[in-house]
């Protein structure tokens, strides 16, 4: 990925992470260009989700992570949080809040000062965007199916029109049809000059959504390139991995 300095949305420099004696990454370097959808693909346990946790400051790490050229540390991630959205693997909806409260959580609690009426209007619009009816506005997350929970979580992630979106295994645990519609939704959302980072072990999702792919094995970038080059690549590990998924 050839990126000039002004075009970097996110830059990961010499990222290292250990759990006890187990090394997850050692001096990992990744650049995420503005407006691109980057997929991080690889088998389970290879450090994909840990990478996302490092970027979002949810775990300690060594190295540097820059967002729009600004070094992120524990105290100054507010800009990143305000300008980003994250879809967790299991949705991570708040059990004690209903659908509209979950969707508009950021607007109510993160200093956007929206009134209840406005929040309900925004929640309806968001549900519409993720292809759900507004009849579930008052439902609790436990009353929704897995696919619906993912969509509500997606609506929560995009509620304040973020510049950058993070997806952690967006289609894991979903049936093929629901997975396909979630992929379509993410594809639509990421096409409007929104930068996105998608963590997945599913090549179908990656091929559907991403512009570029990083193939990660044991914390090392084994292959990276354009999505169109991926299937034609002669890289043995990547070929084996793609064949094993087909």
């Amino acid at each position: 990925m050839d990126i000039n300095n002004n075009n970097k949305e996110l830059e990961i420099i010499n990222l290292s992470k250990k759990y006890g004696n187990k090394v997850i990454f050692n001096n990992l370097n990744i650049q995420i260009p503005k407006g691109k959808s980057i997929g991080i693909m690889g088998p389970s346990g290879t450090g994909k989700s840990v990478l996302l946790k490092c970027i979002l400051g949810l775990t300690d790490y060594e190295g540097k992570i820059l967002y729009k050229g600004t070094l992120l540390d524990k105290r100054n991630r507010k800009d990143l949080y305000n300008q980003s959205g994250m879809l967790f693997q299991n949705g991570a909806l708040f059990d004690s809040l209903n659908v509209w409260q979950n969707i508009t959580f950021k607007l109510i609690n993160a200093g956007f000062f929206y009134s209840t009426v406005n929040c309900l209007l925004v929640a309806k619009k968001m549900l519409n965007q993720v292809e759900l009816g507004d009849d579930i506005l008052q439902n609790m997350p436990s009353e929704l199916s897995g696919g619906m929970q993912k969509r509500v979580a997606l609506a929560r992630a995009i509620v304040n029109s973020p510049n950058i979106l993070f997806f952690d295994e967006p289609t894991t645990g979903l049936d093929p049809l629901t997975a396909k519609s979630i992929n379509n939704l993410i594809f639509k959302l990421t096409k409007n000059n929104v930068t996105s980072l998608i963590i997945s072990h599913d090549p179908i999702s990656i091929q559907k959504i991403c512009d570029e792919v990083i193939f990660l094995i044991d914390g090392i970038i084994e292959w990276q390139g354009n999505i169109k080059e991926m299937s034609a690549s002669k890289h043995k590990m990547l070929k084996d991995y793609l064949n094993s998924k087909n």
Partner: protein
Amino acid sequence: MNKNKQNFYYLFPTLIGKNIIIFITSIGNITSFLIYALYKAVIPPFYIKEYVKQIYIIGWASLPVVALTAFFTGGALALQIYSGGTRLNAESAVPSIVAIGFLRELGPVLCGLMVAGRVSSAIAAELATMKVTEQIDALTTLATDPIKFLVSPRIVITTISLPILTTIGNIIGIFGGYLISVERLGFNPILYIESSIKYIEFSDIYSSLIKAAAFGMIISTMGCYFGFRASRGALGVGKATTDSVVFSSILILAFNYFLTELLFR
């Protein structure tokens, strides 16, 4: 010296040392967790809705448990003191001992232990579940400090609620003693009330409130701390819940002793 004996002499002090280090580290971690939560409670934004919600969950919903416990303990205390007092011809001490005993010891300790069983476990289970299902991580990514949003309201409200609950518990406990003494033991109601009030000092009341506030802080801090540290799915949630109740109860009894030393010396 054979090798097994050598190992024992080496391993035993190592084990003790290791546990002492874990214990001291835990005290440090819990203290810094509490200080950070209290610091976050006084700087804006203030999540008023969360505070109001916790008043209901922690304060109001604990009232029946505290009231019932206090009432029956007050009655039992009156019976016990009467039964012991007859041996010393000191039956007339029942009203004052029930009142003073409740205010100084039983009220705050019973209320603390009952609320620890109800609230500390509930807080730990709720936060631990949120932790293992990534809801706490989700809060962070939604630009909301989880300590400020989840921990500060619980600690502040429990610290304020416990003295109120204890005061209500004290009144109900003393009333339980009164009811049993008057209806069952044949005490004169007016004389009972007079001698109950006569020996109560201001220090009995404020010491009760200070103890209750300290216990409230212990209960919620333990619940939140163990909830936030939870890992490994359902097993972690169960462990967090158990640890929070066990440590809250032990700390309440230990702090009760130290506060009694401090307040009544």
